[in-house]
């Protein structure tokens, strides 16, 4: 069989991944039309390209259905609780930088730290009879982060997109989301807590610890690793 390399199937993440491999003389491309999720690999033998949604790459790596995969640290940590047993980081690719942060309304002049957030949550619950709602799609990461910080009286509410808008829309009081520049936060009258960095993420090449390798695949992996370590 061939060594399976999972790469995000569209957008800038795919293009930048292709560019990164091209720098190491491994040419990845999508074959056929733009709608067809098939790919080809040139410049190295016995490696095949699997185009997947970035969110599915962690699961495929953990299941051992792909040997290598490119996806963000944030997705690996959130989707794979035992990620250290399942995958190993091969290389950080230097793009796709994104921080998972906690942000609150800019007008909350009394809240700058997690400690403040906790106190504000207690007051909020007293007044509104409702736990302070934090909108996010990174449930596990955010819950663990807030639990370790000893924050109580909050509730996570699911938000799969336009998370920065949830506060103005009245469906959450605070958010935990990926931000790369902070412009969207400012436009939505939000500010980042000074100790509210949950995770600093970037696009990373991961190797599955669970995928079996036959002789041919093992050789291909060794070749690929030696190529990118230059």
């Amino acid at each position: 069989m061939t060594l399976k390399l999972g790469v995000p199937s569209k957008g800038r993440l795919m293009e930048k991944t292709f560019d990164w491999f091209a720098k190491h003389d491994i040419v990845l491309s999508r074959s056929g039309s733009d709608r067809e999720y098939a790919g080809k690999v040139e410049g190295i033998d016995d490696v095949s390209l699997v185009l997947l949604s970035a969110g599915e790459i962690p699961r495929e790596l953990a299941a051992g259905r792909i040997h290598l995969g490119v996806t963000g640290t944030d997705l690996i940590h959130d989707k794979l609780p035992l990620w250290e047993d399942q995958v190993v980081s091969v290389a950080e690719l230097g793009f796709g930088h994104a921080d998972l942060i906690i942000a609150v309304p800019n007008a909350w002049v009394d809240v700058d730290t997690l400690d403040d957030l906790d106190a504000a949550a207690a007051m909020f619950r007293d007044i509104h009879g409702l736990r302070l709602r934090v909108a996010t799609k990174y449930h596990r990461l955010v819950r663990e982060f807030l639990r370790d910080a000893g924050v109580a009286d909050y509730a996570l509410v699911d938000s799969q997109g336009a998370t920065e808008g949830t506060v103005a829309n009245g469906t959450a009081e605070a958010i935990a989301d990926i931000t790369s520049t902070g412009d969207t936060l400012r436009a939505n009258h939000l500010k980042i807590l000074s100790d509210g960095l949950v995770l600093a993420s970037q696009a990373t090449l991961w190797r599955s610890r669970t995928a079996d390798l036959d002789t041919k695949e093992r050789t291909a992996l060794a070749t690929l690793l030696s190529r990118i370590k230059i």
Partner: protein
Amino acid sequence: MTEARNRALALRANFEAAGAVVVEPPVLQPAETLLDLYGEDIRARAYITSDALRGEQMLRPDFTVPVVQTHMADGAEPARYTYAGEVFRRQENDLERASEFLQVGYEVFDRSNPAATDAEVFALVSTAVSHLDVRASTGDIGILMAAVCGLKTSERRKAALIRHVWRPRRFRALLDRFSGRSTVPESRLALLADTDPFQNVGAIVGKRTRSEISARVAALHEDATTDPISSTEMDVIDALLNVRETVPFALEQLRDLAVDMPAISHAVEGLHARSDALSGRGVDVDNLAFEASYGRTSMEYYDGFVFGFYINGRADLPALASGGRYDALTKRLGNGAEIPAVGAVLRPGLMVELEGAQ
């Protein structure tokens, strides 16, 4: 599983013989009650499912809450209940831990004599596990709570500390701040120095209003002028948290501490009464371990006596049995009513497994 189930039923029969009524709460529990009680943490520990009609349901993570609800709805007093069945615990970090296991429990709702009911529950559980190589740990969260309530500081600070009794790290951070042991963050100093903090903040978005924000700013100003908790009081709290002795020696140390902090006297005498009641039931209190910090990281409903039985030399295994007093929980779930309550659970599956190994 059959052997474990038989053991569960036998244990339940023993509790029934001790005067308990058998109850069988449903496996599916409305998620709302448990979420309201435990907050977001329960989502990490319980399986949640849903349907379009009843909304979110939880596979019961324990029996205590439904048993309390049943009792508070229509229970006669005093009451004793027992149950046996599966509980479900979501595991996110450790594949070795069971996500489904049998639990047998015994719960007492009785206002007459808390020391006697504490001892009754402990002694029944102790008898059930005494054939195994176990050691017991005990504690009393009520003593720490009494110490906090007795501090010579603002009500707001006491409330903040009580709220975090079950989160030892945050509790410690608050104590350090209130006693002036830790430095005040820059942002807090800047806020306190700012005469018009709302200048340049832009639009106020979300449900938390400007007056709520102002109220907390005022509270922070008030707090900044509150005297730090004295080093004498801090020393008592630190000494209290470090009490780790057999019951008679722990009692002696706590009585000494009560001289400096009379607010804990009542709770310490409660420990004395419990110790006598345990002796009366044949428990060897002279060799029973007491730790003032014990039980603070468990579910946040125990507010008095707490205990657990652990297998010697098997730190990898969870407690074989655990329990405690949860007076405040009956109030939270009682719609205005309340009753002192104490209970415990055992893990028959683990018992059978260990008996096989012995």
